[in-house]
C-alpha cells in the first residue's frame, strides 16, 4: 500500500514538473513574440512555406513572392539533371539502334515481294501522320535547342546569330505546337478503335514481335496494328497530352493563378517527357525506315506489298481479303 502511495506521489511530482515546464516555455515564447526582432524571421518563413510571400501594392501578383530559394533547385534541374536525362535517353537510344542494326540488319521480306499491293493508309491518315510528324520534328529540334543549344553551339559568350536562331526557334515552337496538337487529336480519333489491346497482343509482347529473332517463323499474329504499334500509339497520345498541357501552361505563363512553383513543375514535366518522347520516336523512325523492308511505303504512298502485310499483319491481311478485294488492293504498275 505504501508502495502505491509512493508511486502516486512520484507521478504527481512528474506531472507538476511537466506542467511547470510547459507554462514557462509557453510564457517565454509569448515574450519572444512581443520582442521586435522575432516578429517575422526569414528562416522561420522559409522553413514553414519554402517561399516568402506577402502583400504588395502593384497589380502583378507574382511579385508578392519576395524569396523563392527553390529557383536554384530548378536551375540545377534545368542545367544538369535534364541534360543528363536527355543525353542518356537520346544518345542511348541511338547507340542501341545502331547496335541493333549491326546485329539484325534490315528486317527482310522473307518471301520477297509479291508485286501486289494493299492499301494500308488512306490519304487522310497519311496527311495526319505527316502533319504530326513534321510538327514533331520542328518541336523536337527547337525544344532541344533550349536545353542543349547553348552548349552545342558554344554560345559561351552570347552570340548574335545563335540568339536570332533561338528567337525564331521559340516562335516556331510556340506556333507549330498547334499543328502538333491537332495531329495528335486527329490520330487519336482515327486510330483509337484499332488500338485497344486484344488477345494476340500478349503473344506479340512475349516474343517481342519476333524482332529479336533471326528465324523466319518468328513473326507473331497481328491485326492492322501490332502490340508494339499499340504501345506507341498510347505512348504518343499520353505523352502528347502531357506535352500539350505542360506546354500550353508554359506558353500562357501564370494564367489562372499559377504560381512560380507550378511553372517550374510544368517545365520539369515538359522537359523530361519531351526528351523521352524524342528518344521513343527515334525508335519509331528507325523501324519505319531503315529497320524494316517494305514498311515505309505504307505511310509514304499508302500501299504495302501483300507479302509484307501477310508477314507482319497477317490477321489484318485476312480481314482486308475477306472484305472484298476491289477497293483495297491494287496491282503494282508494270515496269
Amino acid at each position: 500500500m505504501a508502495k502505491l502511495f509512493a508511486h502516486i506521489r512520484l507521478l504527481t511530482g512528474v506531472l507538476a514538473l511537466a506542467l511547470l515546464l510547459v507554462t514557462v516555455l509557453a510564457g517565454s515564447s509569448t515574450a519572444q513574440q512581443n520582442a521586435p526582432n522575432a516578429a517575422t524571421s526569414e528562416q522561420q518563413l522559409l522553413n514553414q512555406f519554402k517561399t516568402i510571400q506577402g502583400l504588395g501594392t502593384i497589380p502583378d501578383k507574382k511579385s508578392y513572392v519576395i524569396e523563392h530559394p527553390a529557383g536554384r533547385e530548378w536551375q540545377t534541374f534545368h542545367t544538369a539533371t535534364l541534360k543528363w536525362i536527355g543525353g542518356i535517353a537520346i544518345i542511348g537510344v541511338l547507340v542501341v539502334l545502331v547496335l541493333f542494326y549491326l546485329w539484325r540488319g534490315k528486317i527482310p521480306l522473307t518471301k520477297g515481294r509479291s508485286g501486289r499491293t494493299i492499301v494500308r493508309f488512306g490519304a487522310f491518315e497519311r496527311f495526319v501522320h505527316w502533319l504530326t510528324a513534321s510538327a514533331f520534328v520542328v518541336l523536337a529540334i527547337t525544344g532541344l535547342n533550349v536545353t542543349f543549344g547553348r552548349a552545342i553551339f558554344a554560345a559561351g559568350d552570347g552570340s548574335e546569330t545563335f540568339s536570332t536562331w533561338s528567337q525564331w526557334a521559340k516562335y516556331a515552337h510556340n506556333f507549330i505546337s498547334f499543328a502538333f496538337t491537332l495531329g495528335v487529336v486527329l490520330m487519336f480519333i482515327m486510330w483509337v478503335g484499332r488500338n485497344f489491346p486484344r488477345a494476340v497482343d500478349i503473344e506479340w509482347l512475349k516474343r517481342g514481335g519476333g524482332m529479336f529473332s533471326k528465324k523466319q517463323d518468328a513473326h507473331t499474329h497481328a491485326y492492322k496494328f501490332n502490340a508494339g504499334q499499340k504501345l506507341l500509339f498510347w505512348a504518343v497520345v499520353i505523352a502528347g497530352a502531357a506535352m500539350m498541357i505542360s506546354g500550353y501552361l508554359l506558353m500562357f505563363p501564370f494564367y489562372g493563378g499559377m504560381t512560380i512553383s507550378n511553372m517550374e513543375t510544368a517545365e520539369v514535366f515538359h522537359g523530361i517527357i519531351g526528351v523521352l518522347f524524342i528518344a521513343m520516336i527515334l525508335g519509331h523512325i528507325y523501324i519505319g525506315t531503315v529497320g524494316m523492308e517494305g514498311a515505309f511505303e505504307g505511310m509514304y504512298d499508302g500501299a504495302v506489298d501483300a507479302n509484307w502485310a501477310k508477314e507482319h499483319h497477317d490477321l489484318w491481311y485476312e480481314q482486308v481479303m475477306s472484305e472484298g478485294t476491289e477497293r483495297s488492293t491494287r496491282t503494282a504498275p508494270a515496269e
Partner: protein
Amino acid sequence: MARMKFLCDADRCIECNACVTACKNENNVPWGINRRRVVTLNDGKAGERSVSMACMHCTDAPCAAVCPVNCFYTTADAVVLHNKDLCIGCGYCFYACPFGAPQYPKLGNFGSRGKMDKCTFCAGGPEPDGSKAEYEKYGANRLAEGKLPLCAEMCSTKSLLAGDGDVIAQIYKERVAKRGYGSGAWGWKTAYYETIAT
C-alpha cells in the same frame, strides 16, 4: 573592386514605396514593369514587416545559368547585367530567380514575353557608359558616374542599403548592436551563400 550588394534592413522599412518610385523614374522603367517592389508580410497582423526587393545580383546567378542564349554577364563590381539584344524572352530566368526579379513586357501573341528587364544596380547595360542607347534600353548608369543605386540613396529611413557588401554589412552589424535586434539580411543566404553574423 567592390562586391556590390543590396541589404534591406526590414526593421526600418516603413513601406513608403519611395524606392519603387525612384527606380521607375530614374531608369524610365516602362509601364507595367517594376524592377523593385515592396512586399509586406503579415499585413495588418502582429509581426508585420515590409521588405523592399529587387534583383540581388546573386553569386553564381541562377538566371545566367539557365539562360538558353547566355545573355547575362557579371561586371567587375559583381553586378549581374544582361544584353537585351540577345534576350529571346523565354522566361526561364524568372523561373530560376529566387527573388522574382526578371520582368517582361507583354508583347505579341499569347503570353509571349518581350525582352527581359530587371534591376541593373543602376549600372546600365553593355552599351557605352552613359550613352543614349544604354539609357533607352536599361536606364541610368549611376555607377559609372560614381553614384550608388537611387532606390537606396533616397530611402527615407535608410532601410535599404546598396554598395560594397562588406561596408553595408558593417553598417548593419553596428545598427543591430546598437538597437539590440535585427531580423537579418533578407535574401543574403540565398543570394550570396552567407549571412551577417550579428
